[in-house]
């Protein structure tokens, strides 16, 4: 459905997207996981034609977006990070306006609005002005507006930013519902749990580069059957660096002034590790143990947690 080859985009001296390539297959939810500023939105803007890439190609449904123009836009639905609705209009008026832009009218438009209002769970509030909605309701209507024309590919750019956990849960259900209907989804997020809960496949992006891509299982293989041990406290760096030599299969992932991260296979217990830390003179303020997960993959790949 979506093929991106060698895509890059620079803003002055900042290389926001650095020669990335990935594919999104029809009917899947593809996660684009990375911290703020990783290059996710820049990639989305290139896909929907608002930014001209410096290099590379973007193909949607086997058509190059630069040459296809309006035809491609009709296949593409975009749900921007910010709520993009007319606050003085109600839900139906908004949907009617956005539907009209895609050439929908009459019975077809009316039916489509009805379906999406149901999907967004706004049936009881359709006649209220959008400005009176909660942020969760606005987000759901925002998503519905992006789907009014039944796009083949839906780009969701961090659709759950700034909403409460309950509304977020509802939103994820809505996305699953859309995917079940056969729409291909490219879902950008910096929430690991969302990516884990939703995505069939995903790519981890940081500083404009894709660090890993594949199914969740494939990506977790990067850390293998290892757990990550993160120690925060006071210690001598040379001691911390020599520790892997003293414990079998222990490897150093990253080290900072008061923080060090090790990787240790799950088959080994953490008792010996803790004992070694204490005997080596570590003054431990905090110790965290992460089982193999996307988070531990991200830490292994970047040396820091995603929320950093």
């Amino acid at each position, binding site marked *: 459905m979506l093929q991106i080859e060698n895509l890059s985009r620079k803003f002055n001296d900042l290389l926001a997207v650095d020669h990335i390539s990935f594919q999104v297959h029809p009917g899947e939810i593809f996660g684009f996981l990375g911290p703020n500023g990783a290059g996710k939105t820049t990639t989305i803007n290139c896909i929907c034609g608002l930014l*001209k890439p410096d290099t590379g190609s973007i193909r949607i449904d086997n058509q190059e977006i630069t040459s296809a123009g309006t035809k491609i836009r009709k296949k593409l639905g975009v749900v*921007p990070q*910010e709520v993009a609705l007319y606050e003085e209009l109600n839900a139906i008026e908004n949907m009617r306006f956005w539907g009209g*832009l895609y050439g929908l009218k009459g019975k077809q438009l009316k039916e489509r609005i009805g379906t999406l209002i149901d999907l967004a769970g706004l049936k009881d509030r359709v006649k209220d002005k959008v400005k009176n909605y909660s942020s969760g309701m606005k987000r759901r209507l925002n998503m519905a507006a992006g789907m009014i024309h039944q796009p083949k590919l839906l780009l969701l750019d961090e659709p759950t930013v700034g909403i409460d956990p309950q509304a977020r849960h509802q939103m994820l259900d809505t996305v699953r519902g859309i995917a079940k209907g056969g729409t291909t989804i490219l879902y950008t997020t910096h929430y690991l749990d969302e990516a884990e809960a939703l995505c069939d496949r995903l790519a981890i992006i940081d500083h404009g580069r894709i660090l890993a891509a594949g199914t969740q299982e494939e990506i977790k293989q990067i850390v293998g059957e290892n757990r990550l041990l993160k120690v925060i406290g006071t210690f001598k760096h040379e001691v911390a660096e020599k520790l892997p030599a003293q414990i079998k299969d222990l490897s150093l992932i990253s080290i900072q002034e008061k923080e060090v991260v090790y990787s240790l296979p799950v088959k080994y217990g953490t008792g010996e590790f803790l004992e070694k830390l204490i005997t080596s003179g570590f003054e431990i303020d905090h110790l965290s143990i992460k089982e193999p997960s996307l988070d531990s993959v991200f830490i292994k790949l970047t040396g820091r947690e995603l929320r950093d």
Partner: protein
Amino acid sequence: MKNPGGFLILVAMPLIFVLLMGLIFIRSESDEIMPHVKLLIEDHDDTFASQFISGAFGRGELADMFETEQVEKDQGRPQIDKGKASALLIIPAGFGDSLLHQRQVNLTLIKNPSEAFAPKIAEETVSILAEGGSRLIRIASKPLKTIQEQIDGDKDTPEILIASLAVQIQRLIKKSQTYLFPPLITLKEKSISKEEKSASTASQIYTVLLSGIVLMSLLFILEVMARDFFVEKENHTLYRLLTSPAGIKGFVLSKQIFLFIAGMTALCLAWSIGILLFGIKIQASQIAPFLIFSAVIIVSYTGIIGMIYALVRTRSQGQAMAPALIIIMSMLGGSMIPLNSLPGFMKKIAVISPSYWGNIGTQKILLEHASLAQLSTHLLALGTIAVTLTLLSFWLYQRKFRI
């Protein structure tokens, strides 16, 4: 339109403004407030010539302005010194005789220094009379000489000579009346009643006022509407609009069309209410040229406003820059001050203002019943502005709204 109430208020503002200005101008016109000049006349000559001069102040419109009083010799000056009159006109002895012999003669006017305008009016009027009189005497020198000979001689004047002189003088007056007297406006004015004259003048004044003020207000209305370019961006709806099949071109074009429709609606509303409210008369045959010409003005205005908002980076910049430019354009275009009252250098540069072409053209259509063909220069100027700025703003918007 999200806020029709606001739009109607914007349309009402120029009408209120025109009403207030109209009340000021038309009231002073109908009230016929004339300056009052008290003029003392010392006639030391007491001939037909001196009586012609002193009598002139008691005829026609001068009679409304001047209150004359004949005073005895040396009686005028004390009254002026006491401030009881605006000026004293002294007609010297031998005035009539000197005129008939075409010798130079001086009239003396003593002005009251404590008054500002009235003595000046007296001075101007006397100088006009003296000028007119001198010319009349030069033109009619031949018959006047004959009259003088008859006066100097002892014989009775034959009737045939009197008839001949009368015919000569009549011919002279006929030939020179174009130069000596104003054109035949007086006759026209006499043919209509005072009420009709007042209504017609009021209609013309309101037409001139409304033409200028509506054009200025249109720019302000369009400016307010054009802020939508940035409102869409601030509300993030622009993002969704640009990713839709409409794209950037569709978005900018739809906004320009919206501005045009809003502008035409505002213009038609303002003029319709103006016609009802101020009794402005527009000939049926002029409605089509007026609407076509107005449409061209509005396209040029949407181009200007579109250009301003394409150039600025933020809405606040636009809100600061646009009104300043509108005021300059309107000032040069005669919307705020009549064009003939502008200083010379401003008159010269007024042609750069689209409001100038719009205002003058509208007035020509409505007051002089000009056809569109007669306004080809105006249409060309406005059309050039419209096409150039619209295309340029399209190009700038495409650059601007690429994220």
